């Protein structure tokens, strides 16, 4: 419930922001050879001849009915557009996050187990370098090296190569949908397309995860129960991976939410480099075309996402909390 004022703020700000975009959509969509009369006709059709206040009321009314309007740019309803594109962004972001976790947690543990040694420094340099690389730069380099020079990666043209058809929609994640459909070839093709953009995202997300893992692990390793476990002669590996790691998961979860929403935002540039048909590229195109409805819809979806995300993290938090036993 605490998120409600933020959401209202987002709705208002999104409306004001998009209405003050320069460029007259009526002119833009009247086409190249429009005259004043046809521009006026279109302005009327779009409801742009009404007062701003009137437009806001209409917008809010539509919103309560789940109607986000029609994207002038793509000609589809914003709701259907977002629901088609959101899974693409989500699939990419989650894959990127998963890759980042797989790389960053071991790095963080490695650094925590050997604090202030060259291993620690190296880990830190590595992840910081990743976070310091502009995401469009790393994306371009990966495409150049792995697609153009080496030919290992498939062409960077979105979610599936030319000769595959998108699987029937269940979750919207091509890899999963294709598997549900029993079509492993398409699933593999979709996975291949995912690799490079996901790695680009993962490189960017290594730092916060690895560093949080390191500090949480250090705290956990310095705690009484780990000392007790060590004194009891329990295997060091078990101490690190079972006792310390489980306790380090908590702070890690909090930062994961931040990293995830950060990655969703970073998607904009990655989607641009990899022609990924997600909501990020949708928003950029909409912004350039002064496509009100689409920009508003995008911002709202992201804001709702953020709220849901925090909720999920809270739930996970209680699940991972060591005080809630998982052995019983």
């Amino acid at each position, binding site marked *: 419930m605490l998120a409600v004022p933020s959401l209202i703020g987002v709705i208002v700000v999104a409306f004001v922001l998009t209405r003050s975009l320069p460029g007259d959509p009526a002119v833009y969509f009247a086409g190249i050879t429009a005259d004043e009369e046809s521009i006026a006709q*279109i302005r009327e059709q779009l409801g742009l001849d009404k007062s701003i206040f009137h437009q806001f009321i209409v917008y809010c009314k539509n919103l309560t009915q789940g109607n986000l309007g029609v994207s002038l740019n793509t*000609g589809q309803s914003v709701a259907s557009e977002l629901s088609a594109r959101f899974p693409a962004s989500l699939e990419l972001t989650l894959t990127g996050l998963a890759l980042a976790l797989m790389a960053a947690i071991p790095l963080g543990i490695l650094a925590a187990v050997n604090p202030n040694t060259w291993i620690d420094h190296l880990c830190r340099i590595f992840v910081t370098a990743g976070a310091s690389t502009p995401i469009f730069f790393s994306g371009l380099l990966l495409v150049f090296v792995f697609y153009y020079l080496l030919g290992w990666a498939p062409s*960077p043209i979105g979610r599936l190569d030319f000769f595959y058809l998108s*699987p029937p929609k269940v979750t919207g994640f091509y890899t999963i949908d294709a598997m549900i459909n029993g079509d492993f070839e398409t699933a593999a093709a979709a996975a291949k397309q995912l690799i490079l953009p996901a790695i680009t995202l993962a490189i960017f997300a290594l730092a916060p995860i690895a560093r949080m893992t390191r500090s949480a692990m250090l705290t956990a390793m310095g705690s009484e129960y780990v000392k007790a476990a060590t004194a009891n002669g329990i295997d060091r590996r078990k101490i690190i991976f079972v006792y310390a790691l489980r306790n380090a998961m908590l702070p890690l979860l909090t930062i994961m939410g931040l990293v995830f929403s950060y990655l969703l935002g970073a998607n904009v540039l990655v989607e641009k480099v990899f022609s990924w048909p997600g909501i990020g590229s949708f928003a950029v195109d909409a912004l350039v075309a002064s496509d009100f409805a689409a920009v508003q819809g995008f911002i709202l979806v992201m804001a709702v996402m953020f709220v849901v995300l925090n909720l999920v993290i809270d739930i996970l938090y209680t699940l991972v909390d060591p005080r809630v036993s998982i052995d019983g």
Partner: protein
Amino acid sequence: MKHHIFRTAWAGILALSVCATLSSNVIAASREDTLVIVSGASVNSMDIMRVGTNRPSYQVAVNMYDRLVSFGIRSEGNGGYRYDSTVINPELATSWELVDDGTAYLFNLREDATFWDGSRVTAADVKWSFDRAVTLGGFPGVQMSAGGMNSVDQFEVVDELTFKVKMTSSNKLTLPDLAVPVPIVINSKVALANATAEDPWATEYLHKTPAGGGAYMLERWEPGEQLVYTRFDNWKNGPLPAIKRVIVREVPNSSTRRALVEKGDADVALGLPNKDSKELSEADKLTVVSTTIDNSMHAVGLNMNFEPFKNVKVRQAVAFAMPYQKIFDTAAYGLGAKMWGGASTSPTTTVWPQPFPYDTNIQKAKSLMAEAGYADGFEVPLSIDLSFAEWTEPTAILMQESLGKIGIKTTINKIPGASWRTKALVEKGLELHLKNFGGWLNYVDYYFYWVYQKGHLFNSMNYMNPEVEQLVDVTLPMAVEDPRYEKNIKRLMEIGFNDVPLIPIWQPTLEVAMAPGVEGFVNWFHRQLDIRSFTKK
């Protein structure tokens, strides 16, 4: 217990993977029948007459619908073709004649032409479609009225296969205007079945579902990703296309498009930057077609509302200070036709566009500035459209350097595509700017109508010359054969040469790269994709 679950899961996965080999979603059709085209543009509607339909979507009108007539196509000899504005060919109409003293056209429709659903194409369908074009407003209305068609009363069903277009007076633009992408023939029965009281022209339905009889049908459209066409095998309105299936994939990044066609992943790459096109053609692995766009020029606009530009000497000084060759080499990579260095201040031929009588001559520019009383120069923003940064940006940077030499201090102002139209074309408030206009109908007077006549959209220079106003009004409907026509357009060009509110730099090209064995790209005036003529070995 755990192990048991795992075992079951594995069995399930195994079973699924066996099924996979049977029901793969991979398109079985081999690549020979399929043409893969990569394009930077995004199709946003299946209906050219709808409000907000963007230019790339015109390809749907071209490929999935037919018009009454079409322009001829001639080979350019390099694997590419160009439309021929002087030849009008039959498409849905097999023949036509001028009747009623040259004020009406009578069209005879093809007897065996059908829509995709098998129903016959009738004059009623044509009338419904044309009525729709002039009624819906916006772009289709404007384009129809360019050919003198404004009202539903001008379209008449004579009988099932005879259709009449009445003109208010004889007009040379009416017939060619029927060959542009807008006046398509829609299956009115299907459309009407999906029309509602609020939406009598079925715009919602046709926006997503084409209902036509063109050479290609829609297989799938994923907005923002791809458009897949399949051939309509019963197409009668022209030679049956060679390719069964065409995938048009959106790849916004031009270097990715180049890489795709270079590596053989795509058959055709559209809209390549001049640089890539030049390098690919030098590498000689691919067929690269580079053809100039008719009736189109990349140019500098000088706004007459800006005090110094009111003086014709200042305008000429700018024209003499342009680093033409440098711009042409750097921004165009030498592809296109030069629009400077003309020999005489009055045109000797009627060819359009043709070089203007200016050259890079800083001395002359300086003395013109002095004569105009601007020996110390002035400051002016130089505005460019960010959507065309590829040519506008290097051009602006080179111009900025060169204009600095005659005391004109410029700051480069990048304007996003959405604001460009409002600022440049509607408000007409940009003092010095880079612009392009291409006329669909290939006539000098048509160009002047849009660009040089007061108040018209592309007259971003606020240019006003009573003689131009009068000449354009008289010449526009005039037949090309009329003896006064040549005299009039030469005079128009002469005014353009000497008054230079618009300084042309070069005539741009369309750049297309095709894999070996692929042929048939047509350079259309609308610059959009016509897939009907492609062949693949």
